[in-house]
């Protein structure tokens, strides 16, 4: 080491080196300060941003679905409830061999092909550590069997959730409706809706699809709660951070008397028919029947193809709510209203008589508008014409009134307009006018069309609900109340019962108040009169009531031919109508009945209407809901 090279200069080398080390030390300091600056930027300046990101990473917000409100009838009978339902679910991460496990499970729990395909589909869409349902609605038996074997199945669990259940089955289905699983279409509708907040449905399985369940969806659904949960990178649950409880849906109390509803549905049997019963002074719907009915429970967890097809393709069309969507020619049930129009416009006096030879002919025309009675009724005043349902009287009256006055008068009773009942899907019927015909058919109105409108044929259409509302309005002497199925909405959290007040939609004031009595008198004679078309049904009746028969032609009868109900297939037979109310003053119930292809109104529909009146007025004491204990 001591031997020095000629040019090696340790002092100079040391100096250069020291120089370089100090420069390197300074550079190092600068770089370390860069790190400090970077950390300061991330941890102090952008702290909030990264804190949010970190929270978004770890916090999952899980919805707590609310319990759907219950539905009770006016007497507190439970119509729609929520029942615990078990589903069998797999957590794929915890199952060693999925196929083998399913095979083992299927030894004591039925797993159908459709369950498997649904399972496979959901398996692909799920997030990690999310359980995938294999079977819904396990029977009590299956639950018991699986519970015993549970220890053998790692990652398979029974999940308990609330499922809508309609304990009365098909009874009242067309009014109550049903809920079903939320579909893609529902989601789209929710997005477009201003009323329904889609985020409130995060954890919900069901949404009202029809009837009250759909109309009162917002009230029934309740408010979804939130559970803030900490999860790891795989979505695995770690701990609950925060919780906001859900607010259960409000309960509905109905005006419907479910016993009356049930009675009517049983009464109608196999018929395709509709019955609407209304309390005239309030518009409260006591019963809304459409037959055939169907079991709403089928739809709750998704109806299988076979059942759906058998309902949808049935010629009886049970899925159609005839009470609000069935539009039929009202037939002779309109005569009372046309008669009233005659009085109001001064075209007829109560006692002015018309000669009925069995047909009516417009001046200068050959066409004969036939009366249902071949020989004619002879001399008819308003009372007799309603009692006996004389067609010729009303042909002539309609002609004298003209379509414009007829249209404007009938419209005041709600014909041609939706009643605004609180279930969706209602149809408005049709009250034709010149303007309508020009618009719809591009053709002028012909006088002959006015003539047949006078007996509720031709273009005119009405739903059973409209007929019930118009009849109730008549019994009210002009007070038109909007029909309502729901009586009260019960907020179980605030313990507040909000009653739905009846809505006065229209008040018909006639020039003379006693015009009402003339027409109602005629309707009374329909059942109580010596020649009344439905006199048979009122025999030995302990109370007095008013009614009107009607027959809606399904097929036109060619000139010169006769209608013979026994000679034609049932689906070509006339629809039978009957409207009625009782008692005569301050009516407590107004009812409309239609039996499709039932033939004549007096024979088929009138006895049903009378049975409804009897049941309601004699068997059910008039109940005042407000006095009921709603905890029932």
């Amino acid at each position, binding site marked *: 080491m001591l031997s020095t090279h000629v040019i090696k200069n340790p002092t100079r080398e*040391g100096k250069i080196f020291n120089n370089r*080390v100090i420069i*390197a*030390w300074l550079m*190092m300091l600068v*770089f370390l300060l860069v790190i400090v600056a970077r*950390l300061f930027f991330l941890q102090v300046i952008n702290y909030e941003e990264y*804190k949010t990101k*970190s929270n978004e990473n770890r916090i999952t917000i899980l919805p707590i679905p609310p319990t759907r409100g219950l539905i009770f009838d006016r007497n507190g009978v439970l119509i729609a409830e929520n029942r615990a339902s078990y589903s069998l679910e797999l957590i794929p991460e915890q199952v060693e061999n999925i196929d083998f496990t399913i095979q083992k499970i299927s030894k004591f729990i039925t797993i159908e092909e459709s369950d498997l395909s649904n399972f496979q589909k959901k398996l692909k869409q799920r997030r990690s550590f999310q359980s995938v349902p294999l079977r819904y609605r396990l029977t009590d038996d299956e639950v018991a069997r699986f519970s015993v074997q549970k220890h053998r199945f790692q990652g398979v669990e029974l999940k308990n959730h609330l499922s809508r259940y309609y304990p009365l089955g098909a009874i009242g289905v067309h009014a109550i409706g049903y809920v079903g699983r939320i579909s893609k279409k529902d989601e789209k509708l929710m997005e477009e809706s201003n009323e329904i907040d889609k985020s409130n449905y995060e954890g919900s399985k069901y949404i009202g699809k029809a009837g009250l369940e759909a109309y009162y969806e917002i009230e029934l659904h309740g408010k979804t709660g939130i559970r803030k949960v900490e999860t790891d990178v795989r979505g695995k649950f770690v701990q609950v951070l925060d919780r906001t409880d859900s607010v259960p849906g409000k309960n509905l109390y109905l005006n419907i008397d479910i016993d009356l509803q049930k009675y009517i549905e049983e009464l109608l049997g196999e018929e395709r028919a509709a019955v609407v019963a209304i309390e005239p002074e309030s518009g409260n719907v006591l019963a809304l029947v459409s037959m055939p009915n169907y079991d709403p429970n089928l739809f709750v967890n998704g109806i299988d193809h076979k059942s759906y097809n058998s309902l949808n393709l049935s010629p009886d069309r049970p899925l159609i709510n005839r009470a609000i969507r069935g539009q039929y020619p009202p037939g002779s049930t309109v005569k009372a209203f046309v008669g009233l129009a005659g009085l109001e416009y001064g075209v007829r006096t109560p006692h002015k008589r018309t000669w009925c030879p069995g047909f009516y002919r417009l001046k200068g025309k050959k066409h004969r508008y036939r009366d249902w009675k071949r020989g004619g009724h002879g001399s008819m005043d308003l009372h007799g014409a309603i009692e006996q349902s004389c067609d010729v009287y009303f042909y002539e009256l309609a002609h004298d009134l003209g379509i414009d006055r007829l249209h404007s008068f009938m419209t005041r009773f709600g014909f041609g307009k939706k009643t605004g009942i609180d279930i969706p899907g209602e149809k408005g019927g049709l009250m034709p006018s010149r303007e309508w015909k020009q618009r719809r058919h591009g053709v002028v109105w012909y006088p002959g069309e006015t003539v047949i409108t006078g007996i509720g044929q031709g273009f005119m259409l009405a739903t059973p609900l409209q007929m019930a509302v118009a009849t109730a309005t008549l019994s009210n002497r002009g007070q038109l109340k909007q029909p309502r199925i729901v009586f009260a909405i019960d907020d179980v959290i605030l313990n507040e019962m909000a009653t739905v007040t009846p809505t006065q939609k229209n008040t018909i004031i006639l020039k003379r108040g006693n015009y009402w009595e003339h027409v109602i008198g005629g309707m009374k004679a329909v059942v109580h009169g010596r020649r009344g078309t439905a006199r048979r049904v009122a025999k030995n009746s302990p109370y007095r009531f008013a009614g009107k028969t009607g027959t809606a032609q399904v097929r036109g009868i060619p000139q010169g031919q006769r209608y013979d109900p026994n000679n034609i297939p049932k689906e070509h037979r006339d629809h039978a109508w009957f409207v009625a109310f009782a008692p005569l003053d301050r009516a407590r119930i107004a009812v409309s009945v239609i039996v499709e292809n039932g033939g004549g109104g007096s024979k088929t529909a009138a006895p049903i209407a009378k049975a409804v009146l009897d049941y309601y007025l004699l068997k059910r004491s008039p109940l005042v809901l407000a006095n009921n204990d709603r905890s029932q």
Partner: protein
Amino acid sequence: MQTNWNNNHFLHLDKPLLLGLFLLSGLGLVVLYSAANQNTDLIIRQMIHLAIGFGLMIALAQIRVQALIPWVPWVYLGGILLLVLVLLIGETRNGSQRWLFGFQPSEIMKFAVPMMVTWYLAEKPLPPSYGRLFLAAIMIVIPLLLIAKQPDLGTALLIASSGLFVLLLAGISWYFVFGVITLLGLSAYPIWHSVLHDYQKGRILTLFDPERDPLGAGYHIIQSKTAIGSGGFDGKGWLNGTQSILEFLPERKTDFIFAVYSEELGLVGVLVLLGIYFFILSRGMYIALQAQDSFGRLLAGSLILTFFVYIFVNMAMVSGLLPVVGVPLPLISYGGTSLVTLMAGFGFIMAVHTHRRFLSER
């Protein structure tokens, strides 16, 4: 004579440096305990790594570095041979061919390269002539290419810098240094298009825009920045780092442990850590300044600067300033290989300091 407690060393160990390393490895175990979700097995294994590392350091500190000089070229050549063998018959793990019979020959080169360059340059007067400089550069480039080919960008980078630090400390002219930097800047374009692998390009591109591939290459950087940033000024607290406990942060026990540290201990903790590192680095440089001959000072200087490169590259990469290259955080990241290599380096540095010969002793 060396076991004088009043002096700064005993058993040829430098006490200040030893203190710094103890502090660092203790802190490392504390962070690792959290990063490993309180897995004590892992802590025990890391303690074994540390024991081996410290043992090796103590052993190497006993050897006078100048005594190694005759061995240097042979170790270097043997290392090159092993690197060639790795490329021919090495094991492939995670897509790169780095292993030969269970160890990484590139680790040897972490000393072999700076020692070789030091040996070669220190032989003749400094600063070196251009001719010697050229040969020295070749000594660096050959292992660099062999390692980059594996590919192991992190190690290649560390080895290249250890060699270059020798050149820099040897006193090559600044004009030359800046000239080379300019040249490298100009060659960036062809390197980008012909040398870099797609995944390496991806890492660099993702660095500038992590959202480019949020679930792939960008995921590491996004999660790491989120962890650091959400730690804030004083951190979420030890064992409370949600990014790490809930496993959003990948590689949290190894290369990204700095993110766990910053998340749980915040900027305050980071400053403490940087303080310890700064202390070790300064002490290392002081030792280099105190060295008596060119071989000792160049070796100590380049090893301590390489240690700094570890720290800077790791922190810069974890905080999103540099692309993700596999460089661990010295003495904090879990893992035996890099730890043992680093501790060996400190053994050499200590030896440089504690085997000095004073005039009075001669």
